């Protein structure tokens, strides 16, 4: 299992993002209600939510830090991490930025985060951090300690924020195909979260996210803590895209975590053959036993070149169907070639309409094919008719001769 992305995890109670937000929102109300209370003139406190945490080796640590002004005056409080064990980096931050000072009105609290980042070589053991809050006039100081106990890492059990994986990161297909990557998203954190879905792909490609087995497009995904869900990434390449490899980066992110997975589409190009006659007529008449010619075009309507274009015909027994040329070595995309076909019905064929199928296919086994059906009207030769008419004329001439020779008696 390959994991990518930010390894930071919230430590402590499994509190959902929503709960955190609620906590923040409630603060002003609490202040309003306590206004009449008896408060000391000045009092501040800086206290971590947890004073001792246990983390696996190499894991970043975030600990909520509650800074409160319990006095009647508003205070500006400077925050410093006064004690940082060797090999660690630590600072105070909110979600967005680092914090060195905070302004607190009377009887308010602010929730901040103490972030501790160990170096890779930080050994298991207890590490003590000290955070000091001091009013601007240095009269009041509040110090608190956090002990982080680093445990030896146990494989696989490392809890992470969000995990996005796919079993088939590379799909191959023709340009006009629809590629569907099946992606599994797992919320590994202990908080529920809403995850945004973003994909980066080549220009003019159509990339959409779909829940598994559902036909709608989504752009975000809500996952409960520890839940995993399969979804599909549907990719429709630009129809004019050249064959080749195209990377697609799918990113999933929530405010607290993000993950990404690289997908690859291998375009083989489309294999599409088009065949027909110039005027659209698919019928011809042929005298039995005599060759009739018609020409049709073959067009590569796909985006990949077609090699070995062959012609196959379906015709009645004893008929001859010949193609000229009988194969086309290579047909580039959008290329048009004219093919002469000569159809010779059997000499004994009955007159009437026959169906003759002309099939064009490329490659073995065929990658693309197209069959056109020709209606061949077999007619009998009128040559004998002229002989017959000649015979009649001859007989008539004989009669006329008789008339002229004997008629005047």
């Amino acid at each position, binding site marked *: 299992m390959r994991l990518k992305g930010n390894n930071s995890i919230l430590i402590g109670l499994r509190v959902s993002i929503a709960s955190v937000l609620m906590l923040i929102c409630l603060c002003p109300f609490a202040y309003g209600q306590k206004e009449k209370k008896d408060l000391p003139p000045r009092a501040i406190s800086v206290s971590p939510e947890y004073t001792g945490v246990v983390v696996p080796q190499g894991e970043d640590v975030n600990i909520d830090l509650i800074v409160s002004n319990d006095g009647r005056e508003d205070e500006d409080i400077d925050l410093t991490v006064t004690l940082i064990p060797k090999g660690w980096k630590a600072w105070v931050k909110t979600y967005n930025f680092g914090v060195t000072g905070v302004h607190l009105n009377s009887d308010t609290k602010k929730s901040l985060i103490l972030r501790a980042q160990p170096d890779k070589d930080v050994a298991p053991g207890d590490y003590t951090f000290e955070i000091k809050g001091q009013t601007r006039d240095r009269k009041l100081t509040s110090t608190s300690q956090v002990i982080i106990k680093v445990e030896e890492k146990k494989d696989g059990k490392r809890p992470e924020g969000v995990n996005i994986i796919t079993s088939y990161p590379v799909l191959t297909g023709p340009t006009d195909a629809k590629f569907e990557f099946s992606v599994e998203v797992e919320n590994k954190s202990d908080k529920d979260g809403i995850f945004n879905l973003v994909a980066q792909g080549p220009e003019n490609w159509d990339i959409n996210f779909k829940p598994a087995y559902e036909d709608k497009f989504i752009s975000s995904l809500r996952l409960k803590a520890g839940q995993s869900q399969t979804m599909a990434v549907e990719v429709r390449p630009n129809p004019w895209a050249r064959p080749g490899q195209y990377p697609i980066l799918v990113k999933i992110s929530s405010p607290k975590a993000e993950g990404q997975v690289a997908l690859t589409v291998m375009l083989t190009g489309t294999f599409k053959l088009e065949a027909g006659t110039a005027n659209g007529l698919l019928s011809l008449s042929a005298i039995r036993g005599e060759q009739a010619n018609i020409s049709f075009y073959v067009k590569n309507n796909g985006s990949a070149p077609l090699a070995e274009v062959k012609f196959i015909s379906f015709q009645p027994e004893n008929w001859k169907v010949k193609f000229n040329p009988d194969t086309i070595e290579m047909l580039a995309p959008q290329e048009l070639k004219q093919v002469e076909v000569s159809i010779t019905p059997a000499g004994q064929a009955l007159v*009437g309409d026959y169906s*003759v199928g002309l099939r064009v296919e490329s490659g073995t086994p065929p990658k693309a094919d197209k069959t056109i059906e020709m209606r061949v009207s077999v007619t009998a030769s009128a040559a004998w008719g002229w002989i017959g008419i000649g015979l*009649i004329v001859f007989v008539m001439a004989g009669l006329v001769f008789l008339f002229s020779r*004997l008629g005047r008696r």
Partner: protein
Amino acid sequence: MQGLYAVFKKELQDHLSSYRFVILFALIAMVSFITSYMAAVHMRGNLEGLASTKFPFLMLFSTPGAMFSMVQFVAFFGPLIGLILGFDAINRERTQGTLIKVLSQPIYRDAVINGKFLAGVMTITVMLVAIVLVISGFGLAFVGVVPGVEEIWRLFIFLIISIFYISFWLGLSILFSILFKSIATSSLASVALWIFLSFFISLGAEVVANTVAPIDRKNEVQPEVVLENARIKEMVSLSSPMVLYSDAAATIIDPMRKTTRSIILMGPMEELLSARFQNPLSLGQSIVIVFPHIIALIAITLICFAISYLVFMLQEVRT
């Protein structure tokens, strides 16, 4: 020309008023009428099922009713009309002494034979046209099928072929009436030849075919042998004007008929691919198929007449 016209007029009057002709005409008209009636009844019952047929009108002529179709009937008994019109044309006049009297009038000698032949052809034409019109009218009234342009053309060609066919027998009987002095001889000879050409040839064809290409029924039959047998049979049969006529007429009347052969060898592909489009033949193609038949019919008719003409013109008046 006035001699030709006088003979023609007189002969036509004779034909149309003679009892034997009127009786035969009535008989043929009646039978063909009944035949078409049967065809019409048959059609009316089946026309719904025959939705694919494109030429319902022609079926009046080509559908076998009780026993024959109209076409078959003309093929069998049309010759009798021709024979009856001509078997005593010349020798009766010779015996009763009117021939020499007529010939001594200021006319050319061929006016007599031409007039007689033309009068016969005219009688045949009138008869056939009448029958076809009656049946057509009947079809219009009873079945309610209206002929299309192509159907009318086909009927017209059918009429022409029929006229030539019957005229052939007319020419033949006139020839016999020239060759034989006795009416009895000429009539017997005509009828004998009719029976031979119409009925015995088909028997003979079978005998010839079975001799040349025998079908061994005990062993496995090769399709080629059957085909060869059928081919020989058809070749020999074609020497019968009746076969020539019925092949030609049936093909003209029935646009779905694509060959005159009775057996054809067809590969599975051929069968499949030709069944794809079940189109009737165009009139032109129907004609081309039986063109040799039509030409042969016209040729034997003309040749028969030419021989009659020649013999008559060169014959001594007295003998």
